[in-house]
C-alpha cells in the first residue's frame, strides 16, 4: 500500500487550469452583463468625455501630447478598463472563496493546492482582461481613436497591466479576513486616486511635482503610457518603456508569488 495509483484521476498537475475553467464557466453565465458593460462603458466614456471634452480641448489648445484629445484619451481609457477588470476579477472571487461562500475550502478538499487556486483565479482574471481589452479596442477603433493595426500591441499592454494589478489585488485580498468595508476602502483610497493621478485625462507632467509620484507608482500610469506609445507613438524614451514593462512584470511576479503562498497558508491552517 506504499504507492497510490493515480487511477482515474489525472492528477493535480494542471490544477490551476481547472480552477480557471470553473471561473470562466461562471463568468459565461454572466456573458450578457459582461458584454454590455464591456461595450457600454467605452461607448459612454468616449461619447461624453472623448468627444465632448475633446471638442473643448482641441478647440482651445489644439490637442494634447501633439494629437487630438480623443486619440490621447483612448488608450488611457482602455488601460483603465483593463487594470480595473483585472483587479476586480482577482478581488471578488477571492473574497467569495475565502469569506462569502467559502468555495476555496471545498476546492481545497480535492487534489488542488492553495497555490493552484491562486494561480487559477489570476488566469481567469486574465481571460476577463483579454475580453474587456478586445471589446474596448473594438469600440476605440470604431470611434477612430486608435488605428486598426494597433490591436495586438494595445491588447498585450492591457493584458500586462490587468494581470499586474490583478496579481497585486490577489495578494492583498488573500490577507483579508473580514470583508466589512474592505472594498469601499480600496475603492476610495487606492483605486479612485490611482484613476485620478495616472495621467488618464491629462498628462502627468501637468501635475505638481509633489503628487506626481502617485502616478509613478501606479500600475495604471505605466499601462497608460505604454498604451499611448503603442497607439500613436507617444514620444517615450527607451528606458521608460523598459522600466514600465519591467515594473508591471515585477508586480505580476511578486503579487502572484505572495498570493500563492498566502492562499496555501490560509487553506492549511
Amino acid at each position, binding site marked *: *500500500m*506504499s*504507492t*497510490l495509483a*493515480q*487511477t*482515474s*484521476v*489525472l*492528477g*493535480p*498537475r*494542471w*490544477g490551476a487550469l*481547472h*480552477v480557471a*475553467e*470553473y471561473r470562466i*464557466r*461562471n463568468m459565461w*453565465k454572466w456573458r450578457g452583463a459582461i458584454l454590455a458593460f464591456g461595450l457600454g462603458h467605452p461607448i459612454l466614456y468616449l461619447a461624453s468625455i472623448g468627444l465632448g471634452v475633446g471638442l473643448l480641448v482641441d478647440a482651445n489648445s489644439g490637442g494634447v501630447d501633439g494629437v487630438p484629445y480623443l486619440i490621447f484619451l483612448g488608450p488611457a481609457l482602455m488601460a483603465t478598463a483593463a487594470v480595473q477588470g483585472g483587479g476586480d476579477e482577482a478581488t471578488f472571487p477571492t473574497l467569495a472563496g475565502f469569506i462569502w*461562500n*467559502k*468555495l476555496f*475550502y*471545498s*476546492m*481545497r*478538499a*480535492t*487534489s*488542488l*493546492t492553495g497555490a493552484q487556486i491562486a494561480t487559477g483565479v489570476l488566469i481567469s482574471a486574465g481571460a476577463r482582461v483579454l475580453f474587456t481589452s478586445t471589446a474596448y479596442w473594438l469600440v476605440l477603433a470604431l470611434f477612430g481613436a486608435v488605428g486598426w493595426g494597433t490591436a495586438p500591441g494595445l491588447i498585450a499592454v492591457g493584458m500586462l497591466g490587468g494581470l499586474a494589478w490583478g496579481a497585486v489585488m490577489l495578494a492583498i485580498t488573500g490577507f483579508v479576513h473580514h470583508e466589512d468595508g474592505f472594498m469601499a476602502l480600496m475603492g476610495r483610497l487606492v483605486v479612485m486616486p490611482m484613476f485620478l493621478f495616472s495621467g488618464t485625462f491629462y498628462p502627468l507632467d501637468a501635475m505638481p511635482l509633489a503628487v506626481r509620484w502617485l502616478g509613478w507608482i501606479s500600475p495604471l500610469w505605466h499601462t497608460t503610457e505604454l498604451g499611448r506609445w503603442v497607439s500613436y507613438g507617444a514620444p517615450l524614451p527607451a528606458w521608460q518603456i523598459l522600466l514600465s514593462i519591467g515594473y508591471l512584470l515585477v508586480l505580476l511576479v511578486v503579487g502572484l508569488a505572495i498570493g500563492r503562498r498566502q492562499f496555501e497558508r490560509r*487553506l*492549511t*491552517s
Partner: protein
Amino acid sequence: MIRAAGLTKQYGQFTAVSGVDFHVDRGESFGILGPNGAGKSTTMRMLGATLQRTAGDLSILGHDPTADGPLIRAHLGVVPQEDNLDPELTVAENIYTYGRYFGLPRTHLHERVDELLEFAQLEDKRKAKVNDLSGGMKRRLTIARALVNEPTILLLDEPTTGLDPQARHVLWDRLFRLKETGVTLVITTHYMDEAEQLCDRLVVMDRARIVAEGSPSALIRQYSTKEVVEVRFGADRNADVAAHLDGIGTRHEVLADRILVYTEHGEADLERIVGLGYLPITSLVRRSSLEDVFLHLTGRSLVDE
C-alpha cells in the same frame, strides 16, 4: 488505511487535539464520537490532508499528508460539517465542477454525474439551484459530490447534524450502501444513535483526547451495565432521593432532570425503588447506550443540555 500516533494540533496555547492514537482498517466504518469542541473536526481536517499537524505521526493510504497532500486528497472524499456547495451552480454542475477540480475527463464525468444523482436520489433535481434544495437534499448532494473521484476513504464530519429524523434515516441508508461497496468510512458525530447505527468501531473523544476505543457493543459492555432505569422525581427532589438508593443497581448518575440507575435488572430495581416509598413522576427502563458510556467516562452528556 489510516494510522495516527501521538497526533497533535495546537493553535498557539490552545491544544485542539492532544496526542491521539488510532488506526482505521480497509472497508471499516470508523467513528469519532464526542461533544462539540472535543477536537473531532480538527482531527478530521488533519485526516483530510488540509490541516498541518503540530506533532505526532500520521499516515493516510501509506503516505504522509504533509508531503503528499494532493496525492492523498485525490483518493479521499470529504463531507464537511457545513455544506459548502456552489450556490451559483445547479445540482448536476456542482458534481461536474468538483470532478473537474480532480482533473477527471469530461466524458467520464457526464456518466459519473448521472450515477451519483441516482445514488443521491436527486435525479429530478438535476437542474435545480442548490438554494432550492432541502437540508437533507443538500447533504446528499454534498456526499454525492464527495464521491465523484471514487474515493477509497470517505470522511464525514457530523453528517446528519441539523437534519430531521426522516432525512437522517435516508442518509444512513445511503451510507450503508456505500459501506457495502467497500468504501472506508470515517464519521464524526455527537449523536450516539448515529454512532451505534453506522460504526463498526469508534473512539470516544473528550477535551482533545481519546478516552475510550472499541465497538459500540464492547464499549457499552465495558463501561456501562446492561440496563438503565431512568426515574424523575422533579428537579428539587432528584438529589435527595438518589442519596437513599444505595444498594440498588451498581451505580447512579444524578442529572438535572433525572436519576440514572445502572443495573443488570432494570424492572426489578424499579420495583425496589417504588417499594422504598419513592414514587417517580415518570420512569423508564432501557438498554444502555453510548450516551451512558460517555456520561460514565466524562461525567457529562454528549449533547449540551
